[in-house]
């Protein structure tokens, strides 16, 4: 089980790989769409990679609710 900090850094690595955003920019308060400029196609890729990395399921209706990096970290932490 990964703790909050590990999930954040793991997620940041995925975002860096998929969208080319520096891991230091991927912080809890950032919005995927408004701050990090990640499109819906990249969000799907990020979700699939996060599922594999953290052993969670992120259904589409849940994915739509994950507005910020922090939302995603909490969801993963609760459901891993």
């Amino acid at each position, binding site marked *: 089980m990964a703790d909050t900090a590990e999930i954040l850094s793991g997620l940041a690595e995925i975002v860096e790989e*998929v*969208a*080319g955003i520096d891991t230091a920019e991927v912080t809890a308060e950032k919005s995927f769409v408004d701050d990090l400029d990640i499109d*819906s*196609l990249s969000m*799907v*890729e990020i979700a*699939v990679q996060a*599922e594999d990395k953290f052993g969670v399921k992120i259904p589409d209706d849940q994915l739509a609710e994950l507005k910020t990096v922090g939302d995603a970290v909490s969801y993963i932490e609760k459901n891993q």
Partner: protein
Amino acid sequence: MTDVVVTGYGATTPLGGDAASTWDALLAGKSGVGHTTGEWVEKHDLPVKISAQLAVEPTEVLPRVQARRMDRAEQVAMVAAREAWAHAGLAVEKGEDPKVDPTRLAVIVGTGIGGVTTLLDQDDLLESDGLRKVSPLVVPMLMPNGPAALISLEIGAKGGVHSPASACATGAEAMAWAWRLLKAGEVDVVVAGGAEACIAPITVAGFVQARTLSQRNDAPQEASRPFDTGRDGFVLGEGAGVLVLERREFAEARGATVHGTLAGIGLTSDAYHITGPDPEGGGQGRAMLNAVRTAGLEPSDVGHVNCHATSTVVGDVGEANAIKKALGDHPVLTAPKASMGHLVGGAGAVEGLIALLSVRDGIIPATLNLEDKDPKVDLDVVAGEPRKMELTAAVNNSFGFGGHNASLLFTK
């Protein structure tokens, strides 16, 4: 009617990662053909183990994230387009005003095959790992309008994005449609070209089964030999060429460097056979003559033809006969596929660029591997060394499966 001028160009080919290195390698008599890398050649025991792969991998040139969202065909198109756009002096820094009204800027870039490597790789993933491993980018990566659409995003073109698909004539057809759009005054600038990256198991297998590829596996650099008696088929290549075409008034007003004029075009079709060219060469001849006529010239003005000649037994002779019938026996020929293989949808664009440079620089590259000219080819084909020659006009021919014939006429 306005003139259509060329103000920028770019390419990535088996001979070089940009237009200048491609042109230099061509003049130096180098070959871009080699043994195909990829385990699939042995896996499927394909009888063709050679191809003309890119000299420079596009992933070495493009930003990583941009490249991973693109099929290889899109990557090569983007590499060539970025070079052409910068070469035309139209690239601006972020936040700077564009040098051309986006609504007066169009993109016409096609591919013959589309994103076939993406299609194959992603189908493998679907089979092995199931739906969730399939990329959400599959459709934009394999769609044949993908290269043009991605270029429009890169340069902010809002005056229309078009993707002709006419197999091996695609690149030249894109130039021809650009010419029509500019002549009609619909836009001021068109980024036009063709791209292909289809060196993949199913494509090679398909060309093998159609009996079109050279099987000279023991001497790859000698395999593509247009007009030579020893020719036994073409060599599949990959790459892209892009030109920036403008209305002359617009180019002059912004002080652009003009490298030449796309003075005329001809687009015709054979309605004869799905892959075989009309043996009478009527459609090819009409394309060349239409290019001459739309340029307001006479066949006697055409000093040079950059041939489609792919190194197939039937096609090369057919084209030579069509040239002779349409233009006469004076044009001096060359066939660049001898050096860089057949770039399919990219061929007409790269070879159009080569014809343009021949007119500009007064030099015709030699046809590599032309050692024993087929006696049925009763025309002067440059062999051995490039030939210096002042040219009033040069024609580039591109013909494609489906009976497509595209001819472009370039002047200074």
